[in-house]
């Protein structure tokens, strides 16, 4: 009887500890086709076995905010629980004709453009809900793009910890130094979501930023 009471008490304590454990909302933001979903997929696959969304060479593949809850990331013996939030790419213009270049038919291109505009609005609305944001940039592209500057400026204004990821370091044209020069005041790491290169450093940075939440 005494053992049963002790066991129940022990279980209740542990249940409460885990129930109260904070789930950190980790958002992936950035311009279209930077690799936000690829990175989120890589992490989710590693720790849950499932992906968060589909990826494509056609811009604006992610047109709805998609998330995966209770993703337990293990790093150097520590475990943290995250709600992963993958957002549609933010852009200042969307023209359906751009999608025609990828052999999308006109009707689908128009539908895609309409959904993409809604996706941008949704991404912006979700900014308020984030605990930490990973801004994913394509390391082969010019970082001095106003969308990048606007996103990062917003995160700073909202006092949300930010990590800049220079993705696609596996490509020859990738230039991490150019991104470092554009955003010298922020934590930045280069990685390849496609091949999983340098994810250890990414997890270390995320765990470090989590302390600020």
């Amino acid at each position, binding site marked *: 009887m005494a053992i049963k009471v002790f066991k129940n008490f022990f279980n209740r304590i542990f249940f409460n500890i885990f129930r109260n454990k904070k789930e950190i909302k980790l958002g992936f933001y950035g311009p279209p086709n930077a690799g936000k979903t690829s990175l989120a997929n890589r992490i989710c696959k590693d720790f849950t076995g499932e992906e968060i969304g589909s990826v494509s060479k056609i811009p604006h593949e992610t047109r709805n905010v998609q998330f995966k809850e209770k993703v337990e990331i293990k790093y150097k013996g520590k475990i943290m629980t995250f709600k992963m939030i993958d957002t549609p790419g*933010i*852009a*200042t*213009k*969307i*023209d359906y004709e751009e999608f025609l270049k990828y052999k999308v038919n006109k009707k689908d291109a128009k539908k895609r*453009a*309409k959904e993409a*505009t*809604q996706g*941008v*609005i949704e991404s*912006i*609305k979700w*900014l308020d809900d984030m605990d930490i944001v990973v801004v994913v940039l394509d390391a082969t592209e*010019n970082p*001095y793009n*106003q*969308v990048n*500057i*606007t*996103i990062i*400026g*917003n995160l*700073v*204004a*909202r006092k949300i910890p930010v990590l800049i990821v220079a993705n696609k370091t596996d490509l020859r044209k990738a230039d991490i130094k150019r991104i470092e*020069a554009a955003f*010298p*005041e922020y934590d930045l790491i280069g990685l390849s979501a496609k091949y999983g290169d340098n994810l250890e450093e990414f997890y270390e940075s995320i765990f470090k930023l989590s302390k600020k939440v």
Partner: protein
Amino acid sequence: MTNKKGKKEIGKIKGFSIQFLPYAEIRYLDSDRRIMKILEIVLGNNILILQGRLRPLEETRLIGDTMAMINHIKDFKGIELAVISGNGTSTILGKFKKGIVSMLSGGDLGAITIIGPASIVKEIKRNPRKIELLLNK
């Protein structure tokens, strides 16, 4: 490019004008009105050169409102936007000074914001040394 008469021409560009908006015009407007004023100018096929810059939250609001308009206004594809700030200072004292000046003047007057409709402005290319405004023909 040379035309039939042998005179040089820069290619056909659809009608547009460049409009300068001093910061004083928007200083006392709330965010809704600021964005409305900017979008009115841009929707009139104008490239807007704004003295100063919007607040970060207004910049995202401008992007959001632009997206909402794409689906409701014929031939509107969005905007091109670039903010050119004065010499960036990374020292704490420099930032403090800049903050005080911005607070007293009501905004970052050392900056210039360029906003144009995407149907006219193809791209605003920028790097630390130069800014290029590429127009659609």
